[in-house]
């Protein structure tokens, strides 16, 4: 049972490093009250087709569910599958489905339905997070309605984690062959009214497989929730919402509870790696810029004293983090003098150079810009919206890009974008490095977590050596929860309906 041990090791690792027990109030003691509509403002909803979702996953879990679910400890746990088994070679997965799962149209979910979903993703959604995994699916078998067997061509460690984002929809849903308009899922709430960019409401599903759940009559999402919602929380017209960490004090002052996501968002400053101009090809210039970044102040600005500095893409003290690499960080502390002498050595007069910086419109980008400007560079800062930034980045005529990357279901997802053919590699400067590709591929195919950890770290050391990006630190996204809300707990990622928590168990106090 080598695979078993592997999983256990992963979980242990996660539990040891990733999971921070949250301060829970004594809310669990009371008997849950039924009824009421919970209002949320988290991220948006891009599409009604759960297989075509493009990133933000805070909304759709309430009406569609998955075989696995990322638990509070960051590991994949059985969800619609009652349990799963992995063969010793790590290539064959057997999912034993629950027998009481009903779709919103009342039909009982079978293995055939699940297989249809996997096939749809494999055939119709050729890119995205799941594409790499689905390419390796060799065959599927659903002859037993309660069992699905998936055979992979190679060992693929992130598979179970990635399945936590492969939503199971009834194939009879409208638009199955093209784009699903009205998904028929299995979640505690059904796909109700959707007004893109405005609001989404989901009434409770009475035949939900977890008997007695959900408590709420409905949930309603404000889909413009990506900005700070602290005022709405304090005014009392929203119950659960994303807030900025610098509003925490004001929220607590108004009796709004504050929770943090389990996994952190990673903050970094990338160089243009695909087409760097001559100036930026000089490692001394990159080093000088890295030395200008005051990681502590930067992370303080983002998340206060709770935020952590790090040169690595995973949270410090977690399984895939390495203390030694952290200790060797040449840029742990800012050193402007050294940076200037590096520039001098490189024969660069920063006052004669204009660096083009691309960012989203996040405030921290201004902090990054100002830190680099301290060296004397002139800065042309373009703060852009989604598409604007995308276009500007993929032109590769820029120099620096301060960005962040949200919580991820698997460590692989942190590394995927460093691949030459990874999804949307612009944020990391479009690295094209065969050696790095090989290192990451070997990590993915590792038979055990220790080896996987070592190979991921090797890959990261390679990134550090090349100074493709400057890792700055980690901070958890913050969610404000109104005082009347009971039973709500944030998860490891943004997911709002999970194996061990979420909106199904949330209720509203009288």
């Amino acid at each position, binding site marked *: 049972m080598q695979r078993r041990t592997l999983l256990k090791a992963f979980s242990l690792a996660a539990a040891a490093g990733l999971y921070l027990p949250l301060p829970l109030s004594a809310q669990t003691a009371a008997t849950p009250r039924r009824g009421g509509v919970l209002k949320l403002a988290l991220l948006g909803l891009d599409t009604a087709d759960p297989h075509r979702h493009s990133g933000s996953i805070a909304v759709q879990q309430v009406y569609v569910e998955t075989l696995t679910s990322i638990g509070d400890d960051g590991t994949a746990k059985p969800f619609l599958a009652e349990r799963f088994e992995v063969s010793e070679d790590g290539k064959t997965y057997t999912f034993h489905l629950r027998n009481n799962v009903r779709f919103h149209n009342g039909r009982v979910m079978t293995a055939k339905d699940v297989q249809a979903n996997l096939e749809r993703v494999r055939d119709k959604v050729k890119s995205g997070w799941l594409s790499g995994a689905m390419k390796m699916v060799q065959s599927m078998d659903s002859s037993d309605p309660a069992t699905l067997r998936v055979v992979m061509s190679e060992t693929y460690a992130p598979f179970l984690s990635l399945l936590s984002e492969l939503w199971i929809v009834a194939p009879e849903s409208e638009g199955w062959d093209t784009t699903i308009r009205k998904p028929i899922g299995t979640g505690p709430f059904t796909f109700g009214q959707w007004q893109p960019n405005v609001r989404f409401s989901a009434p409770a599903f009475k035949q939900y497989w977890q008997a007695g759940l959900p408590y709420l009559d409905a949930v309603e999402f404000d889909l413009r929730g990506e900005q*700070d919602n602290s005022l709405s929380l304090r005014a009392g017209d929203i119950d659960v919402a994303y807030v900025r960490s*610098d509003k925490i004090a*004001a929220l607590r002052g108004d009796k709004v509870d504050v929770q943090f996501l389990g996994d952190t968002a990673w903050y970094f400053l990338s160089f243009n790696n695909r087409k760097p101009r001559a100036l930026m090809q000089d490692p001394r210039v990159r080093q000088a810029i890295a030395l200008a970044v005051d990681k502590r*102040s930067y992370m*303080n*600005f983002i998340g206060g004293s709770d935020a952590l500095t790090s040169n690595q893409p995973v949270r410090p003290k977690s399984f895939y983090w390495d203390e030694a690499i952290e200790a060797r960080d040449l840029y742990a502390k800012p050193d402007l003098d050294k940076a200037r002498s590096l520039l001098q050595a490189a024969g660069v007069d920063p006052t004669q150079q204009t660096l083009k910086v691309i960012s989203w*419109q996040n*405030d921290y*980008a*201004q*902090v990054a*810009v*100002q830190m680099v*400007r301290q060296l004397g560079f002139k*800065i*042309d*800062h*373009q*703060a*852009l*919206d989604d598409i*604007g930034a995308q276009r*500007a980045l993929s032109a590769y005529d820029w120099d620096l890009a301060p960005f962040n990357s949200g919580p991820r279901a698997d460590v692989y997802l942190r590394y995927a974008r460093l691949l030459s053919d990874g999804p949307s590699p612009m944020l990391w400067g479009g690295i094209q490095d065969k050696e790095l590709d090989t290192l990451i591929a070997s990590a993915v195919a590792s038979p055990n977590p220790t080896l996987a950890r070592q190979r991921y770290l090797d890959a990261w050391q390679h990134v550090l050596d090349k100074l493709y990006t400057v890792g700055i630190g980690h901070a958890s996204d913050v969610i404000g929860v109104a005082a009347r809300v009971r039973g709500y707990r944030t998860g490891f990622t943004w997911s709002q309906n999970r194996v061990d928590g979420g909106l199904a168990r949330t209720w509203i106090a009288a």
Partner: protein
Amino acid sequence: MSSHSASIMSAPQRPAPRFRLHWLAYGVVGLSLLVAVFGAALLTQDPLAQNLLARNLGPSAAHWLGTDSFGRDIAARLVAGTRLTLVVAFLASLLALLGGAGLGLIGCIVGGKTRALVYAGFDIVRTMPPILLSLALMVALGVGTSSVILAVGIAFMPLFAYVARAVYEREMASGYVAAAKVIGAGPWAIACRHVLPNMLGAMLTQVAIVLPRAVTTESVLSFFGLGVAPEVPTWGRIIATSVEFAEQAPTSLLFPVLALALLTLSLAVVGDRVRMHLDPLRAERQETAHA
């Protein structure tokens, strides 16, 4: 004559003497210009320098007008931002004036289909509210100072175009234009000699209105993340940045808004005065008002 300003609501009364506000207005506008030109020399603090340990502070000896959410000195930013603010507002207004009134006037002078076409264009531009139009233009043009000037300028063009047309029609109906035609003056000569000078007053009024509106429009662009680069201190950007922290640091919002309101008021007053001075009839108006 419109000399009877009879108020039907009240018994005849003497008008109250008005406070001579215009000197104050000249002062404010003059000061703004001085700050715009020499502001950089006055600065003791770097308007871009962040002090992440001194964010959202109220006024103090170290920071007269407090600090913003990056710990930047509001006073320094206001002073440093005056130049770019005025330059953007001025160039945008100028663009609106030249593009709107200029194009409109040329269309009017050429007349016929050209005129119809030009104004059909303005009609189309006008169907979109200026704010939405400038936001859309910013998306199309990409962010940056020149885009802001273009976006705001284009959005305000119809305003000038319609005023230009109204003035042109009024002037063309006047006796002296008829007289000029009889003398043998061509349409362009008439436009230069009679229409243009008489249009100046109306245009000046519009500019005095559009100038501050350009600043607020720029701040709305910033509010939607589509203005100048985020750290660049323009008044609009300062206001937009401070709005999010209106509760923690009310002064960082109050002072820039006050500055803008004061400048707006002053521009309106100065615009009125300049227009009055441009008008050789003012002496007569003042007299006939009492005749």
